[in-house]
């Protein structure tokens, strides 16, 4: 388990470096020391996540919008945080704000989204 964690962390760092390595007109873009999100301007931080993500990741936005979370207005920042504390992958504690009971009943060695597909939140057939 610990080995796997280390490998995943390395992978994560690699991916984040790769994602943010592109250089635009303004030069290379770094990742905030405290956030998994690429740096954006203070003004852009005042946009709700979906304003950009419905263009950047329309499939994810649409999955969320049509899900129970989308209808029930559980927005991106509940699971992924805001800029400074943004997480690509949420933690179980984010789910447990509402789903304490369900998590107690679920297998303890699995992540919620290994069965409840992220963004659609439908139980998959695995």
């Amino acid at each position: 388990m610990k080995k796997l964690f280390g490998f995943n962390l390395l992978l994560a760092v690699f991916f984040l470096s790769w994602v943010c390595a592109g250089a635009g007109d303004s030069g290379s873009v770094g990742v905030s020391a405290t956030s998994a999100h690429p740096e954006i301007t203070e003004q852009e931080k005042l946009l709700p996540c979906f304003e950009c993500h419905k263009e950047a990741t329309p499939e994810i936005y649409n999955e969320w919008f049509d899900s129970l979370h989308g209808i029930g207005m559980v927005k991106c920042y509940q699971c992924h945080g805001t800029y400074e504390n943004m997480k690509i992958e949420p933690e179980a504690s984010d789910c447990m704000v509402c789903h304490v009971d369900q998590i107690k009943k679920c297998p303890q060695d699995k992540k919620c989204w290994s069965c409840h597909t992220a963004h659609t939140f439908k139980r998959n057939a695995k």
Partner: protein
Amino acid sequence: MTQSRREFLKRTAALSAAAYVGVTLPFDEKGLVYAASETVWHRGSCRLCGVGCRVELGVKNGTPVALRGVPESRTNFGYVCMKGMHFWKVMNHADRLTTPLYRASKKDKFKPISWDEALDIAADKFATAVKEHGNDSVAYYGSGQALTEETYFFQKMFRGGLQTNNVEGNPRLCMASAVGGYLTSFGADEPIGGYADIEKADCIFIIGSNMAEAHPVVFRRVMRRKLDNPDVTVINADPRISLTSRIADIHLQFHPGTDLALLNAMAHVIVKEKLYDEAFLKDYVAIKKGKAVSIDFAEYEQFLEKYTPEYAAKIMGGKVTPDQIREVARRFATSKGTLSFWTMGLNQRKQGVWANNLVHNLHILTGQLLKEGADSLSLTGQPNACGGVREGGGLCHILPGHRLVAKEKLRNQVEEAWGIPKGRIPPKPGYHTMAMFTAVNEKKIKAMWVHCTSPVQSLPNCNLYNEGMAKDDCFMVCTDIFPTLTTELAANLILPTAFHFEKTGVYGCTERRSQITRKAIDPPKGAKPEVWIIREWGRKLAEKLNDPVIAQCIKPFEGLEEGYELPKAIWDEYSQKLTKGRDNDLRGASYEVLEQMYDGVQWPAPTEAFALTGGTVKKFVRGMDPMADSHGKDDKPYQFYGPAHPDQKLWLWQRPQADPEEIPDAEYPFYLSTGRIIDHWHTMSMTGRVKELLRANPYSYIEVNPADAKRMGIKPGDMVEITSRRGTNIMPAKVYEGPIEGMVFAYWHDQHPDRMINKVTKDAYDPGSKEPEFKICACRIKRVSGPKALKPYIV
């Protein structure tokens, strides 16, 4: 180093893809909320809307660290909305007020002073006002967010101590029409049923409410009911298509202010097609018009004659067809159980009480009441508008326990309970909210206490009332946790208070449910619970006015520790002495009982044994409501014992369609309506200080229908000027099929002077409930520029 939005968009696509290919963190025990070993969880209520969700605050080493829902609670079953998930983050915010602040003149800067000095000044100013200008020169303006113990204690001090009924609160701005509707239709305030009806309802009729954003956790239950049972009909009637409409089978979209015609037309169809419940009408119903003049069914039927679906559809403005009205009326009448929800869309209206009556009419006509899945359920805006203000005596015309000020016998009951001389409470109701702030403008109010609310931002046509509040003629004390527009403009003295979970007290939510929140952590050093502030102020007041009766008002609470013992003593006095035998009998809901319950107690609950079962799920039903047995007039299954109907019947009202105060014309061609959004609470003094919530909705927008936007040359994000006969705002536009053509809609949370929509709204009010018509006025709009970079504005 930053990147352009376009670059960001490209990269986020890749970033999200990265998560998809398995870059994940481990499922670590550290993440398990329920397993966090050093965290202690404290059960209480959410601090925000009127739903009454039960939550637990996680505290570690004296600091709040997390929040979670309570799965066992019958209000929310563990679910929490976006605001509720994050409200606790304000507790340790750097802006918390921690010392009393004083300025002699509102032109001066505030200076920190000691608590003793602050309370001395407060007592001196109120005592001087009473001595020099009479008892009605002082006033209290409170909040549906104050704990019941706070509202009750404040009104006791003002009525019994200072001998004025100038006791009001912001529920006048949101719930007063619902109160008027319940009293006139059912004879008693507050709903008959509750949320438990959602899971049994087969037809859910939502009118004038964007539940999805304003009451999200109740909406989640409605959503679940619909998704699990596709045959359940959901009808949404609203001039604006909102997120609530997403689950609706039928959306009725019409011009603002024409819904009385719709409701009468539904009644017309129900009567014409004989879909009413004749036996129910015969056994339980009286029919009234005007000022409660009795009429017979034939006259009522005659009145409905003109409200044909064709007539109503024409009045309503083109988006509704006569056949839709017939369809909605039939489904309403014939379902196994029909449950109606509404909130400010009906209440904040010049015809608010009538609109409430007409929804109740449909339930009375069809017998869609008192059975599983059927209720006429007004959603409450604030967490304790029902419990604290409607039940605790927080409005100018009511005393604790749903008693009218105007009735001597009821005043005497309160005087006796308080141990003060008979005749001490004045017989005349005080100023209602709009009259109170008019009196401030007229320099009639010399000292005013504003508690936990920001009238500078929340009053309609606020420019007019802010003039008076800004002057030094009225000395103002504000009790709050943060600076607000009101503390900055109008306060002379700011007293820093404890926040939720930093003190103990009861909230009573929408469905007659009282729930306790115990103190879990100490407030920041220097902040004090309000009940302590009132007691200490009262002692100084008694000295300065040399009045033993004021001392008597605080005597039962002297010497008690303020975090728990003091509020408990106040609750005991209120519940045991003031609710005894009243329709909101709470004697069984002692602190000891409330602390045992996951989700509190629904009144009436006259005994602890009954309260421990959860209380009364349905009022007026024999076998479910103990007062239906003890106060019944015959042996029928339903007994309407409410204090406002001596005949113990439900009243069906003849109420015609009537226009709002202001309708569009050539000069001001648009309807303006306003409302909440999910991420913010009221004037955003709390939610604006939580990064996640602020960023999700940092400013107010004006929603414009695409057809209007095209005509006016307005594109998304353009800056638009909104002008009424009272004021002007400039805010960015959202262009989408929300508001009906000819109508614009603005969010009211923004504190920025350019975007504070209550500068534009109208202060006309319902003649019965005195609730202002926030929801409808006339305005004009104009594009003033392309998009501008804006900054959020928090005082």
